[in-house]
């Protein structure tokens, strides 16, 4: 039974590694300017974790094979070096790995979260509420109109609680159910939660950020490839959480301007 167990562990370890090595289920193509740092961290971590995983399972299996049911009179041996060598090995190897991953990983995080958006970044507001995302563009005047929560009304499609009658800034605001951005243009995404916690996740853009009710947070990113992508909610927000999504369209500059004109006409 011990030998059978050892073989089972090895088979499971190898089978577990195969989909990773064959890249069967991986993140989609990166279309962002900062994502390559995240992908590099991921590959490096996968290599180190993978080696640690396989080594640990193999050594466990080998020792189970070699040192089971050896008979009542078998001599007990101690691993040479005892615990001291193992503790030093763990401190050095794991400590070094930890430092490497931690230190080299700082840039991947800092580029996204600790650097402000550039001055020319295009502001877009996104509001998350049970169970849809709505987006707002400031329009030709470049200014977002004020929002009034008490005026929010889904039925009349006043998702942001705008008051165009009294507030000239809001009259040219463009409110949409899909997000469109021009390619290769930095976007400053202003995130507002209408009711409970939600989250904004676009896999291809390598961005994920929670909406925090009571705290307006923001993201900035640049998309490098034209296409249609999915924005999904990743923070449990209620019964419609599984269905809460929107499409992100990355357009060429010309197509984006046409889209803006089209949306403006529908306001």
């Amino acid at each position, binding site marked *: 039974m*011990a030998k059978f*167990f050892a073989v*089972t562990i090895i088979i499971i370890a190898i089978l*577990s590694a195969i*989909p990773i090595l064959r890249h069967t*289920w*991986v*993140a*989609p193509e990166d279309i962002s300017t900062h994502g390559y740092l*995240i992908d590099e*961290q*991921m590959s490096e*971590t*996968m290599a*180190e*974790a*993978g080696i*640690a995983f396989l080594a640990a*399972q193999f050594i*466990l299996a080998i*020792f*189970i094979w070699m*040192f*089971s*049911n*050896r008979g009542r009179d078998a001599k*007990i041996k101690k*691993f040479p070096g*005892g*615990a*001291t060598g*193992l*503790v030093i090995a*763990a*401190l050095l190897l794991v*400590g070094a790995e930890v430092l490497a*991953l*931690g230190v080299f*990983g700082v840039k991947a*995080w800092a580029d996204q979260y*600790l650097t402000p958006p550039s001055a020319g970044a295009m502001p877009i507001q996104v509001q998350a509420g*049970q169970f849809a995302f709505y987006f707002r563009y400031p329009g030709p005047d470049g200014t977002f109109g004020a929002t009034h929560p008490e005026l*929010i009304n889904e039925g009349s499609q006043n998702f942001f609680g705008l008051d165009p009658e009294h507030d000239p800034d809001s009259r040219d605001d463009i409110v949409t159910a899909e997000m469109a951005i021009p390619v290769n243009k930095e976007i400053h995404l202003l995130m507002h*939660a209408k*009711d*409970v*916690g939600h*989250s904004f*996740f676009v896999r291809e853009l390598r*961005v*994920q*950020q*929670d909406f925090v009710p*009571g*705290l307006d947070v923001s993201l900035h990113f640049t998309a490098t490839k034209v296409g249609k992508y999915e924005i999904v909610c990743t*923070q*449990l927000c*209620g*019964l419609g*959480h599984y269905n809460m999504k929107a499409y992100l369209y990355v357009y060429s500059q010309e197509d984006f301007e046409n889209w803006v004109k089209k949306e403006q006409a529908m306001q």
Partner: protein
Amino acid sequence: MHDMSAHAAQHHAPPTSFIRKYVFSLDHKVIGKQYYGLALVAALCGMVLSWMMRIHLGWTNAAIPGLQLLSKTGAPGGVMTPEYYLQLMTMHGTIMVFFVLTTAPFAAFGNFFLPIQVGAEDMPFPRFNMMSFWVTFVAFVVLMSSFVLGDGPTLGGWTQYAPLNAVGSVAGPGQGLGVVLWMISIALFCVGQLLGALNFITTTLDLRVKGMSLMRLPLSAWAWFITSCMGLTAFSVLFPACILVILDHVAGTSFFVASNLVLNDQLQPHSGGSTLLWQHLFWFFGHPEVYIAIVPGIGIVSHILITSMRKPMLSQRVLIYCMGALAVLSYGVYGHHMFVSGMNPFSALAFSFPTLVITIPATIVVLIWVFSLYGANLRINSASLFALGFISMFVSGGVSGFFLAQPSIDIMLHATYFVVGHFHMVMGVAAMFGIFAATYFWAPKMFGRMMNETLGRIHFWLSFVGTYCIFMPFHYLGMAGNIRRYSSFPDDYLQPLIPVHRLITVAALITGAAQLIFVYNLIHSRFWGKPATDNPWEATSLEWSTATPPPWDNFGGKYPVVYHDPYQYGVKSSVGDYVMQASPEQVKTDHDEK
């Protein structure tokens, strides 16, 4: 410290009435068995919930026969609604984390064996101990009552994030009464655990018998002691947090609800609260909680492995220090659950470093286990198989932590099935394997009968292979971006992953069925198993010095004196290759803790 008069402090007469013997018992052994029974019932409930979840995820429109009996609105015609999926999911997580993983390894086995392993007659506060079980029992009943009261259980996940947990039923079914019942249940659970922690800590420090220095305590006793210290400090934070949520529901406060929130086109009557405050309070508890779930397993598995290997670990002290390091560091890492929560991004780096550093004591523990196997003479049985399986699972679950510890990678893996795979492997599998190993190992002492070894091995094989088949694919799903807590997968990119979910469901149902073999074995052996001798495993710690099952005062009035550390194996003594802690026989040995 080791004075016999210390025992007089908690001496109580043997119970005579049925109620005092089996219901409101002051005996730590009965309380331990009561906790075990509660955990068993909870585990079965949690497992059935997981079957229903998995069936729905694989076949969203399938009618589950009988589900409409549990809830007409939640599952009309047996077809689960999205809200009911979330409600069942919340209950699954809550039941498993609190009433199984905190209860069985710590409260059940700890209550039964800690006093015996230190050489005491009982714990110092038997009334607190009895209260701690019954408060926990009431907590379970309150939680389960949410299935049948109001519009069902809360749907906010076991993490119950604000403000979804505090705005009331306007946010969805179960968010009114369901949340209040959840909070009351968990608040009661906290009280039960705090009472238990008081007993465990004082037992370990004050009731050790003559000769039982701290370093001569078995590793399981150390694990229970360290866990109870964590429990004292963690549950005491969750308790007030739950009270504050209840106040937000019933007293018009706004601890966790910010201003200007709009639900159903209505401005909510709350202002000034903090969404993130709940997350800080919850995770300050929540991360030590998962170590509360695993550290007893680490101690128990070490204890069982040593007996099975017939040799001590390469260093007992290092294992103790590592368990202590895990406990202390666990308080500094909680923010790794909040990397993308909106908290200050500098905090992400501050939490990431200790999260990576905590890998070091965990790695040392695994290395000591594996390299102690070198040169051993492993006896293979159900208990040792599950103990060895624990090591494999702990490694698998642990390495995925490397990814999640880094905030940049967490951007892609947060809230995906990668996280779900990670915590299921360490908690849902490794910790469960620890419970199984403990059961096969200690059932003879607790019930006086051996469990059936053949059934135990079948249980092991199906569980070991089955749980890998279920939870390894979760990691792949997560890397592909499969979001968690979705009741179904309508998104374009998720459609191709549904066949994987179906395979997982099949594996889950088979593995679940295998657990019924264990339940049958447990119950059948309890009454008809082969009678156990006092020391069937040829083990050394104090629980094996006493009768099987132990008498009401554990040692029949004759307190042991301890002459050795608990792991004198691989020696030549008059009884074999071991010498018991309470045996005055001196043998030639490599190392014997004083």
